[in-house]
């Protein structure tokens, strides 16, 4: 029983990342009609916002310690972060320790800026082009962004640990009388994802801006005829989608050490999530994200891999085939999207 719940939790956790990326993809597709293959790269840039802030906070001055030797036998160069000398060792160390949550403050403006530059600088020129052209140009952009990150940060994954207070494991089953250890940061990640998803839905549902965007997604032409500059609003939505992907990346950094390729690892699966959820459907993207996350998690159990060897590698695609055969528009797909 506890093993079952553990896999569900793992699935929800993995599904959180899928859902956040797929939500952004769907927002962009639903508003601008663009298939954005650079969306995984936005997730990766978000994670590297956390890496960058962590490195920035650890920017150090060097003192020579004559009592210790380096690997060449020379006096050891001891690095002390400036922040520790400015705020004192304890407070300085605490600020460095909390660098990942603090990165959210950095990531929001950075991701909005990156989103705006990406949309205004490149993607807007491809609105009226074939989807194949959009895929090619955004895929190319993703590779460029990857290589830039690799140039500055290297190809090796970079450890970006969570704050000490949020490390470790909590026994979630203690209240119910069984053993269910689960990493604290993964619980934080799930809660954070739920918060972001709720925030995006609330924004679209309860604000005038969101109402106009939803109307634009349903019938862009009519909204335009009413004198509303829907393009400007859609550009903002692109920036918001970039921000959602970036925040997903920031908080994911302590789960698996970021590397330049992490966006690509999520991208393909996130597209499958979008298709299974239904093109253009925001609730569909979220539902499919969590659903496929849980299924993938169960398919990786020992029981599943011994019963059906290789099932862990194909489960998501298998489900995608079954869903598309039985519900061609996906779980919650809207009529008319990508059907003309």
């Amino acid at each position, binding site marked *: 029983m*506890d*093993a079952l719940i*553990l*896999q569900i939790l*793992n*699935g929800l*956790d*993995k599904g959180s990342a899928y859902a956040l990326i797929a939500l952004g993809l769907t927002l962009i597709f639903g508003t601008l009609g663009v298939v954005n293959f650079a969306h995984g790269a936005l997730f990766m840039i978000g994670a590297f916002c956390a890496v960058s802030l962590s490195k920035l906070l650890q920017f150090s001055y060097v003192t020579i310690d004559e009592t*210790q030797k*380096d*690997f*060449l036998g020379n006096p*050891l160069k001891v690095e002390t972060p400036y922040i520790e000398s400015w705020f004192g060792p304890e407070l300085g160390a605490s600020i460095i320790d909390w660098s990942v949550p603090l990165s959210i403050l950095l990531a929001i403006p950075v991701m909005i800026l990156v989103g705006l530059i990406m949309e205004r600088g490149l993607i807007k020129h491809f609105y009226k082009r074939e989807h194949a052209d959009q895929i090619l140009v955004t895929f190319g952009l993703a590779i460029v962004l990857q290589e830039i990150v*690799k140039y500055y940060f*290297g*190809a*090796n*994954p*970079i*450890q970006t*640990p969570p704050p000490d207070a949020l490390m*470790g*494991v909590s026994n979630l089953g203690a209240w119910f009388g069984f053993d269910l*250890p*689960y*990493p604290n*940061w*993964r619980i934080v990640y799930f809660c954070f994802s739920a918060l972001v998803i709720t925030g995006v839905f609330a924004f679209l549902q309860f604000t005038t801006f969101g109402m106009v965007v939803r109307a634009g997604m349903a019938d862009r032409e009519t909204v335009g005829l009413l004198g509303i500059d829907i393009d400007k609003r859609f550009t903002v939505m692109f920036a918001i989608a970039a921000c959602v992907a970036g925040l997903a990346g920031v908080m994911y950094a302590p*789960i*698996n*050490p970021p*590397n330049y*390729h*992490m966006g690509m*690892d999520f991208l393909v699966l996130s597209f499958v999530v979008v298709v299974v959820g239904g093109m253009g459907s925001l609730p569909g993207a979220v539902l499919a994200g969590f659903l496929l996350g849980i299924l*993938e*998690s*169960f398919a*990786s*159990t*020992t029981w599943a*891999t011994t019963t059906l060897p290789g099932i*862990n*590698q194909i489960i998501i695609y298998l489900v995608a085939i079954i869903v598309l055969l039985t519900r061609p528009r996906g779980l919650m797909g809207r009529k008319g999207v990508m059907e003309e």
Partner: protein
Amino acid sequence: MSKTNYTRRGVLKTGAVAGAGVALPTIFTAQSAAAYTNEPTGSTVTLGFNVPQTGPYADEGSDELLAQQLAVEHLNGMGDGGCLNTFSSKALKGNGILGKKVEFVTGDTQTKSDAARASAKSMIEKDGAVMINGGSSSGVAVAVQGLCQEAGVIFMAGLTHANDTTGKDRKANGFRHFFNAYMSGAALAPVLAKEMGNDRNAYHLTADYNWGWTQEESIVASTEALGWNTVNTVKTPLASTDFSSYIAPILNSGADTLVLNHYGGNMINSLTNAVQFGLLDKVVNGKDFKIVVPLYSELMAAGAGENIKGVLGSMNYNWQLQNEGSKQFVKSFGEKYGKPPSNSAQTCYAQVLLYADACERAGTFDPCGVAAALENFEFDGLGNGKTLYRADDHQCFKDVLVVRGAQNPTNAYDTLEIVEVTPADQVTYAPNHPMFGGDEATLGTCNSGT
């Protein structure tokens, strides 16, 4: 009105004779002038360094390339001479190889077999490389070794740990200085018994490709010989990034030891996930839960950060070794690049010097002469201590290091500490060992490309 006497048949005959006449000298020169592939005729000789310059192992490839460049510098008499000062063979004089200045070209393996073969082929055919060195993957090593065998050049493997490279896929033109999975198991077993006892239940997570399988097979064999029980062996896709769903079942499996047969990013992520789930804080069967990473590298250790504290593994070389060759290499590398060398850098450096030395001793660049000079060659002074290049399978036999993630690192490079230096005879096996292809595995015959 003019009339020509040309006929179609006449033109064809004349063309054929003229074509044969033009081609004949080339055919003869191609066959007769070059005694072997890419025989150097000028004042230089070209080596091909095939390392991952892009892709997930690009940092490892970059370190290999630094070491290879350093080796070329030392061969050409520049810098401080490095291990030419400590090498037991005194054939190298710092005047290139056989009096020819050493030049090099580089290729990008991308850690993909087809890309690695293409770049090696280009270096051999277009740049005239007489030897190919480098790489960070066993799949790449086996693929490039096969190509070098066909092309008639020597392959001095870089980082490749699968048994197959000098096992069932061994080749007469291929040589491996790096240790292998069997050696990891043989070196680790006594330390595991000493530190963890003979009554353990091990759970293996294994990267689902050739190297992972051979490492799992080797570690299972050596730990079961100790009396350990193997609870489960689970294959994980190479493309996996999150291992949480593989870690979770371990919690209820009854296992008290996790063996991670992963390398690179796989290892960094699986170890990070295992530590996140609190495995190292658990007590199972009355014992503290332990994690073992049979193959370590410095870059992996740096990537895994604090998670590797206390975790045991094995290495081909570590810069903290205090023999004369190691001290000299660390000094040369450290002064030039400002950091200590990784074990992939050391193996590439040693391989380049070993190749050059073999050419000098053989008095030729002919691959068959070089191979003969390398076979059963015993040497010292390159960092690993006394080493033998066994003739039967072209595998180096030397001490193997058992290392542990440092508990209290004092600097960025102090990530691993040496627990034990396992003597070479303890990791030596028969050339026809079942894990290495048995009696059917043969080197074949040397190919010089003529």
